[in-house]
């Protein structure tokens, strides 16, 4: 109708694999930097995983400074932050001594009662719970990755499984590294975001691998590099379209979905971009390590 689809030619012929060395170096660097950041700077763990207290209040005619003054006389490790607009303030208390209890929530509420219009939210996570949540989050991510891999192994040859692992690991580490740089809060919702990114990235990879497999049957004489290039080009407009629609929805969530959901939306946006990139520039070139055609063995 509008013919905008002509922007992406029906049979594009871009030499993606020719650029693979540059992108490989870029990705390896990114992964090393990410690992370095994660081990030195670490993630900005939220109370879900660190334990502690979080109270969100709406105030009227009270500055954040006033509240800070009232609270810091009783708590040395209190941090306050405007949340969305100047009348909404987020109060965090870290769980340093491992001795924190629900009493903190009550006493903080009592201290600032008069300045507050509404207690919008209060969360307390005890030290035993936070370590359990961390463990379960880790468990969920590992099991999901393993289950996805088993599925890929069942549906494809093992070389594809290997390519998918490399791409997935790349995506998860790269995303975590960016979360560390951007200091995005790491919470239970982030775990959900990471798992969804894993699902999305694999989804993207599977579509391209599916085409690789099809083309391996179709063009028996074609050089592998050319065949991979062809497959990426065949699926290119789909890859771009789906990433764009998903990003449109996520950007809308990021801008309009409210303060609480913003870190989740941001993590997903980062992950979708990285996942799309890795399907084309990491997953497919990884298949080149195997200098044979999987179906040659069947013949």
């Amino acid at each position, binding site marked *: *109708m509008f013919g*905008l*689809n002509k922007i992406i030619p*029906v*049979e594009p012929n871009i030499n993606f694999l020719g650029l693979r060395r540059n992108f490989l170096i870029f990705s390896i660097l990114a992964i090393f930097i990410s690992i370095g950041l994660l081990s030195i700077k670490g993630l900005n763990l939220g109370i879900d995983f660190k334990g502690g207290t979080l109270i*969100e209040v*709406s105030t009227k005619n009270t500055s954040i400074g006033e509240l800070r003054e009232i609270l810091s006389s009783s708590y040395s490790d209190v941090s306050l932050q405007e949340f969305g607009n100047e009348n909404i303030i987020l109060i965090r208390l870290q769980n340093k001594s491992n001795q924190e209890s*629900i009493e903190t*929530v009550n006493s903080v*509420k009592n201290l600032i009662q008069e300045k507050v219009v*509404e*207690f*919008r*939210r*209060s*969360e*307390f996570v*005890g030290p*035993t*719970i936070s370590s359990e949540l961390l463990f*379960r989050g880790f468990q*969920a991510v590992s099991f*999901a990755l393993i289950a*996805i891999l088993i*599925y*890929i192994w069942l*549906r494809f040859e093992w070389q594809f499984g290997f390519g998918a692992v490399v791409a997935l690991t790349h995506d998860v580490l790269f995303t975590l590294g960016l979360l560390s740089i951007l200091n995005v809060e790491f919470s*239970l*919702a982030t775990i*959900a975001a990471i*798992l*969804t990114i*894993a*699902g*999305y990235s*694999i*989804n993207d990879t*599977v*579509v391209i691998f*599916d085409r690789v497999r099809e083309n391996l049957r179709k063009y028996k004489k074609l050089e592998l590099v050319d065949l991979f290039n062809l497959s990426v080009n*065949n699926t290119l*407009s*789909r890859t771009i*379209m*789906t990433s764009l*629609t*998903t990003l*449109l*929805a*996520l950007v*809308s*969530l990021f*801008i*309009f*979905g*409210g303060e*609480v*959901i913003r870190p*989740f939306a941001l993590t*997903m946006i980062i992950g979708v971009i990285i996942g799309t990139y890795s399907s084309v520039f990491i997953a497919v070139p990884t298949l080149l390590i195997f200098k044979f055609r999987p179906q040659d063995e069947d013949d």
Partner: protein
Amino acid sequence: MKNYPIWKSFTVLSLVLLGIIFAIPSIIYDENSENWFLKNKINLGLDLQGGSYLLLEVQLDVLYKEELDNFVDSVRLISRDQAVKIEKIDIQENEVLVFFANKDKIKDIRDSFFQMYRGVSLQISNNRLSIKLNDEYRKIIQDSAIKQSLEIVRKRIDESGTKEPLIQRSGKKRILLQLPGIKDPERIKDLLGKTAKLTFHIVDNENTSALQNNLAPFGKIIIPDIYDENTKYLLDKRAVVGGENLVDAKGSFDQTEGHAVSFRFDTEGAQKFGKVTTNNIGKNLAVVLDGVVITAPRISSAITGGSGIITGNFNAQEASDLAVLLRAGALPAPLEIVEERSVGAGLGADSIAAGQIAAIIGMVLVCIFMILIYGTFGALANVSLIVNLFIIISLLGAIGATLTLPGIAGIVLTIGMAVDANVLIFERIKEESLKQTKVFQIVKNGFDRAMSTILDANITTLIAAVLLFAFGSGPIRGFSITLSLGVIASMFTALMLTNFLVYMYLSYANKKELKL
């Protein structure tokens, strides 16, 4: 292929219709609707409607320690009966070591003890008897403690007037509470934070040296006053009567004493209470609640009616809360709140509004984009996308799922990802259109070729979503539910509805060639 099978059109259209009809209750959201049909709406999670989520942990260690103390008391009584002197008692973390002066009757003592506590491990070595809390015995204590605690918590919450609470056991020693719509979580936490163990004890006013040395003789116990820690009472360890004999308690007002709690005993309690008050006129009777003396009035006359009042410096709320606690009964062990997540109604409403705006804008953007890229086909895909949203909403309502804030995020994400299946199909059709000219053959091939890719791609997402559900908690589960339903619904709408729409469009528009 030009004739689309009637049964297929019928199936597609009826599923779409069902999807839209069952979404109605959730869309015209009326919280108090009594209509049987409109009741099938989505449940809002605590983070959207406001309310409190509490995770309580039963302090089993306290119980184990109590049981060890019981062992000591019983062993003392038995050896007194057997006239054997105890040299030393050593209470360790898990066991009690009793050293007797001689080993003559140690076997008899062991057997008598075993009659009282079946299941504990008893071991004799020379003049030493070791009584050990083994794992099975601990498990018995644990199970009965959790069961009782659940019951008491349920009673307390019911008494507090909370509507539709969810109370369930979670893991080995925890209780999970979901209290939708409560305005004052602090009051509930106060109610749960008290053990409410009520006992009545005769006060020993004669043995003043024991109080001075702060050392209770056998059979006695020293307990502080509720208002002044330095005021202490020496009491008989054995309670005259306890809270378990209460049949009723309520807040009341006494002209001279102010706010009070009036109570009534059952027959057994009334008899015991009557007998003790008759025999101890002139002495003081201490009312002990959770390890402190609330009041210790002098017994001026026998109380045989089986009812009385407890006074203290209560205000109205405190008196009525104490009555609630006494009515519900004592917890076997203290409960510690290990996790709390409370959301006020204001934030919940804001989240819903923000989620709706994000979903609508995301939807509009994706729809515009699809039309820009695929023209008429994009418009058809948009119809599928909208139906997809209706189906997700009606499925959520039908299975009684709970919609949380991450759940809304899941729906918005699904909007973006749902068009993927359509895109895969359209791209295939585009490719096929280069190879041949028969319109319906092109479309058929397009759908057929895209099918396996769509399945592979969506199943991986489903795997991630299902595991997220299995290992996630609370709100995260809400996300995995909407994501899974979204993925399933998008496969249906793309493979069946878009397919149907494309065939209809091509038939009625009588297209001879396909340009996508």
